């Protein structure tokens, strides 16, 4: 390495799996110990995991991180996540990260809305809020029955589509109710895009700040391939279209700036 280099050089890091278990239908929690500390990892950021021989790494929001230990919550969708599902305790993974932007934690009455695997970064955020005594309500939505103990979800209002755990219905049906009940000043959300879109619309209507963490498929994770490019607008000047890359400018954005598909 050149001695004149000033920037810290990031490398792919190895981590050892300490646990990998199912928490709900098709949803899993992977816990690993990395060779290096993820000390700077903040809620909203992600890690990109090399999945066997796949050419493209898979990005996952960090669900918890402390020292060299971190967790992700994932759903088995394709070859990459199938590979992760099959990792046994003691197996090694190769990852880069933490990458991307983090939620801007403010001392405001907060509503955390996590849908499906989107609960990951919300869990991490809830931990931080607890540590800083920031009041919050955590809505966690799933299709079906969830084992909150195994998932490591701190006290949350559970909502399932089929009513098998907690309240029945869609998480979006409860957003307004909790904003009013808990006098919410800021919303943080991660989950399916229709949920984040709906939350953003409500936030705009009720004039509340909202931050969304968008999870999509990337190719590079470092801001060069333009594979994750999305359309955003300036809140002050909504006519101007601004191209942003989820992996570089995000994944956390002001929800009101996103032009949802």
């Amino acid at each position, binding site marked *: 390495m050149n001695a004149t280099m000033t920037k810290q050089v990031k490398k792919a890091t190895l981590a050892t799996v300490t646990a990998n278990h199912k928490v709900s239908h098709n949803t899993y929690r992977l816990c690993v110990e990395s060779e290096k500390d993820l000390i700077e990892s903040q809620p909203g950021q992600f890690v990109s995991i090399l999945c066997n021989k796949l050419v493209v790494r898979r990005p996952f929001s960090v669900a918890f991180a402390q020292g060299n230990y971190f967790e992700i919550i994932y759903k088995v969708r394709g070859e990459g996540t199938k590979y992760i599902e099959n990792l046994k305790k003691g197996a090694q993974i190769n990852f880069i990260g933490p990458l991307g932007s983090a939620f801007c934690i403010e001392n405001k009455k907060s509503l955390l809305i996590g849908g499906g695997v989107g609960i990951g970064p919300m869990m991490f955020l809830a931990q931080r809020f607890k540590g800083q005594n920031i009041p919050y309500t955590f809505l966690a939505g799933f299709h079906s029955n969830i084992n909150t103990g195994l998932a490591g979800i701190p006290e949350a209002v559970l909502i399932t589509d089929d009513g098998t755990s907690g309240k029945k219905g869609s998480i979006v049906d409860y957003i307004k109710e909790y904003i009013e009940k808990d006098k919410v000043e800021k919303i943080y959300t991660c989950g399916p895009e229709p949920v984040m879109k709906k939350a953003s619309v409500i936030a705009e209507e009720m004039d509340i700040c909202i931050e969304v963490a968008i999870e999509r498929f990337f*190719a590079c994770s470092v801001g060069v391939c333009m594979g994750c490019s999305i359309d955003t607008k300036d809140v002050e000047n909504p006519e101007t279209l601004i191209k942003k890359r989820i992996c570089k400018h995000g994944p956390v954005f002001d929800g009101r700036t996103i032009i949802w598909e």
Partner: protein
Amino acid sequence: MGVKHNIDLSVNIGKLKLKNPIITASGTFGYADEFEEYVNVSSLGAIVTKGITLHPRKGNPQPRVQDVNNGLINRIGLENMGIYPFIEQKLPILRAKNISFIINIAGSSEEEYVQLAKICQNKSIEAIEMNLSCPNVKHGCLEFGKDPDTLYRLISNVREAYQGTLIVKLTSNVSYPTQIAKLVQKAGANAISAINTVKAMHVSLNYNNSKFEKTTIQGGLSGPAIKPIALSFISEIRPVVDIPIIGMGGITYIQDVLEFLSVGANAVQIGTANFTHPTISEQLVDGLGEILIKNNKTNLKECFNRRK
């Protein structure tokens, strides 16, 4: 490398003198800034910028990328800021770095290519790579790379407008590679880079209401899957041209670099592998040096029994 060895990895591409033959491919390395956290960019032979057009382009709607076995299909559609903002915002940053860079230009008409070339000439850009084979834009690019007459006229006109090192990037999606390669050289190009991504499609099927419903993504395939196609293309055109060939297509390991050099490439570009292993380009530079040392050679030419 700890001990100083008297090894020479340098290679000349036209007027460009590169310190080594490892170049990062267009669209996979941004404008080098993005990779500085991963790679000492000044260790590389050169970087090729993302394809730049005359006017800004928004690119294609999502989805834009899809991985397949040993490869990646992309249909980005040349999203970029356009040449003028590039010159204003990115060129000074690139020039401040201790690197050789090649500007990848893409036009949607002959006039646009010539205009882009003139702008590069005026700005004293040392090297340009003409993207004649982007499979993801409706007009231009791929078509220019396929038709011999249009190709010859186009390159000749760009040559006239631009005195720096002119590299022409070719597609393997042609019937007569040798004919195309000869024309590129005849028209005055200083080097050929090959191959661009290969036109490909991914299909995913869903069984719904007793029928298969398909969702498709069509674009350019890159990655290890196209390496054999690239090696074959380069070995086919090598005998018919004297200008340098910059080989690319799925290069991931040092063995791949050596294979491309062995079939006649003078330098190589690293593309998709930058996504899989962000530090790979610098590792390959080191790896090439180590191979020379291990085999007691002082330069690359000694390693291959090659005429060109």
